[in-house]
């Protein structure tokens, strides 16, 4: 029997992402540094159970983005993404 994966969708991290970036990030697209896959952040695999939020690539499982909130700071490591593309309103 296959174990149930323990991730949610990037959508589940929408509140934390929006509070950091100031805009809805589920509609942002990005490119995985590891495998080159293009995807919406809503389509990433989100791991929320740890001390921070981790988004992984649905293609190669590489870590795309890490967000950790400490008492005074928010740490963001997006080195797993070659770029992020955000829709802007006209």
């Amino acid at each position, binding site marked *: 029997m296959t174990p*149930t994966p323990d991730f949610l*969708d990037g*959508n*589940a991290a929408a509140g934390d992402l929006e*509070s950091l970036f*100031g805009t809805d990030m*589920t509609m942002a697209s990005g490119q995985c540094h590891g495998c080159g896959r293009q995807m919406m952040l*809503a*389509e990433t695999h989100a791991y*929320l159970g740890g001390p921070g939020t981790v988004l992984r690539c649905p293609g190669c499982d590489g870590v795309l983005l890490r967000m950790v909130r400490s008492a005074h700071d928010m740490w963001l490591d997006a080195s797993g993404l070659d770029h992020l593309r955000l829709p802007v309103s006209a």
Partner: protein
Amino acid sequence: MARATVPRRLGERLRWRTARLTRREDESSLARTLVLDVPGWPGHEAGQHVDVRLTAEDGYSTQRSYSVASAPDGETVELTVQRTDDGEVSPYLTDELTVGDLVELRGPVGGWFVWRPEQKEPVFLLAGGSGLVPLMAMIRMRRAVGSRTPFRLIYSARSPETRLFTSELRRGDPGLDTTYVYTRSAPPQWPRPAGRIDASVVSGGGWPPDFEPTCYVCGSTAFVETAAGLLVALGHHPGRVRTERFG
């Protein structure tokens, strides 16, 4: 009457708001609907969710995401919460929170797992358990704006007792077809024995890929993996399959 379009938060930063519980309703043996009054609520789209934050007297704080169940209606937001026995937040929300109590709420968030009334293509909804909640918001939004976009819903529940929104779905909407699947116990004389959804259910209760429906799949991670896999195997384009996994 619900509005056809929802004003977006324009330039307003996402922030925590205080919401007051105004009504509680039993939805199934496991789930309750919480009707919240949220002053300043900017409106939402069908399929969006909110973060709910609870803070204990000692300062310990925890938050969870819940899909909004209701169509947009002023400053009222309905959440339908299913209790998980080992859960930290859901038993509090379903059992402890009483009318007049306050919770912190942030949202709406998420613009991807959303159905908008201007979409004209057929819609195929696949719900597992409480994954029905955001899809119900889409059904209610469709009704509120008088949309004639054809919807088909496949709803997989453990047993008839755990189904959500039973009477509302039984009453039905013109142009909405619902197929039930029971995974543990089916009613007597039910045509299909209890079991998980499979290709025959998905092709029988849904739209053919040629119709190019937008498919919304919501449920546990295991349900979403199965259902989305079946859709793609049946020929639905992965770009038209939108998923939301629940923890």
